[in-house]
C-alpha cells in the first residue's frame, strides 16, 4: 500500500474506526503514524494534551530501534510493543510495512481487551487503505 496521499474518504473512515472502536471503549488517545514519524490520523477523548507531533517522531524512532534489535536476535520483527506506566500506558502495533497504530490508555482499560480491539481496528485500516489506489508525493 502506498499511503503518501490518503484520500478524504479513507481518512474519514479511519477516523471513525479509531473513534468508535478505540476511543469509545476508553482509550485516551490513538494515533496512526507512518514509520517516518508523520501523523496520518489522530483521535482522542478530548482530555489528551500530548504533543502528538513530537510523540509521533519519538514513537517512529522507538519502533525502528526495536525493529533493528529484533533483527539482531534473529527475529523478523517484534510486531507489538507495550510500555506500562503507573497511570498511563502505551501500546504500539504494526499495521503494515509503513504504518503504526499507537494507543494511549489508563489503568481502567484492560490490556487484553485493548489488544482484541486493536487487532480488529488494524484489519479495518488495512481494508480501508487497500480500497483505493493512492499515489505518493
Amino acid at each position, binding site marked *: 500500500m502506498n499511503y503518501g496521499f490518503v484520500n478524504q474518504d479513507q481518512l474519514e473512515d479511519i477516523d471513525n474506526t479509531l473513534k468508535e472502536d478505540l476511543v469509545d471503549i476508553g482509550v485516551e488517545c490513538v494515533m496512526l503514524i507512518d514509520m*517516518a514519524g508523520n501523523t496520518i490520523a489522530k483521535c482522542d477523548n478530548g482530555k489528551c494534551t500530548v504533543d502528538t507531533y513530537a510523540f509521533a517522531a519519538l514513537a517512529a524512532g522507538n519502533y525502528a530501534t526495536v525493529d533493528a534489535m529484533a533483527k539482531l536476535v534473529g527475529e523478523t520483527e517484534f510486531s507489538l510493543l507495550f510500555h506500562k506506566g503507573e497511570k498511563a500506558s502505551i501500546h504500539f502495533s504494526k499495521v503494515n510495512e509503513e504504518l503504526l497504530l499507537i494507543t494511549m490508555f489508563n489503568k481502567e482499560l484492560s490490556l487484553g481487551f485493548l489488544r482484541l480491539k486493536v487487532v480488529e481496528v488494524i484489519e479495518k485500516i488495512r481494508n480501508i487503505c487497500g480500497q483505493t489506489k493512492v499515489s505518493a508525493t
Partner: protein
Amino acid sequence: MAFINIRNKEVQVKIVYYGPGRGGKTSNLEYINDKYRQRIKTEMVSLKTHGDRTLFFDFLPFDIGQIKGYEVKIQLYTVPGQVKYNATRKLVLKGVDGIVFVADATKERRESNIQSLNQLHENLKSYNLDLFKIPFVMQYNKMDLKKSDIPVLPVEILQKDLNSRLRAPAFEASALSGGNVAVTLKRIIALTMTSIQKELL
C-alpha cells in the same frame, strides 16, 4: 516522503540536518528554536547522551503558514554525527524530503566531511533516494572561527571537496551565533516545497 492530509488540509514535511559529528547540526536547530520561539508551539525534543552528544535525533516541528490552502508543518530533524551511529542515521533519513548538509569548515575536519557526505549518498541509496535529486542545501559551518585564529578551510576548497558535482546552494554559516542559519533554512524549505509541488502536479 511528505504526508498530505486532505481532510485537515495539512502537509507534513521532513527536513534532516546531516553531517559529521560536532559540526553544528544541533546548534542550527537550537538557534532556530530560540529565534523563532514565538512561532513554535511545542518544545524541541533532543535525545542526547550524558556527554551532550546527539544519541538519536533532535526534533523541532513548526508551522510556516499556508500554501494553496494547506497548512505546512515543517519537521526538522538532526542525525547523530558520531561515526558509530550510522544505523541510527539511516533510521532518521526514512521518509526525508529535504537535506541540509552541515559541513565543519575547520581544517582538521576536512576528511570527516567527505566521509560523512559519501555515507549520506550510500544511506539514501538504501531508500532508493538519489543525493543528486533530493532537495539539498550545503552549509559550511564554523566560519566565525577564522577570527579566533583557528585554521578554517577556504570556501573554494570546501566547494571542491563537497559540492563540485552536487552544485547545491551553499552558505557560509556560524550556527552558534546564528549567521546564515535562517538563510539555510529558508532555502531548504523553498527547495523542498517546490519539489513536493512538482511531484504532485
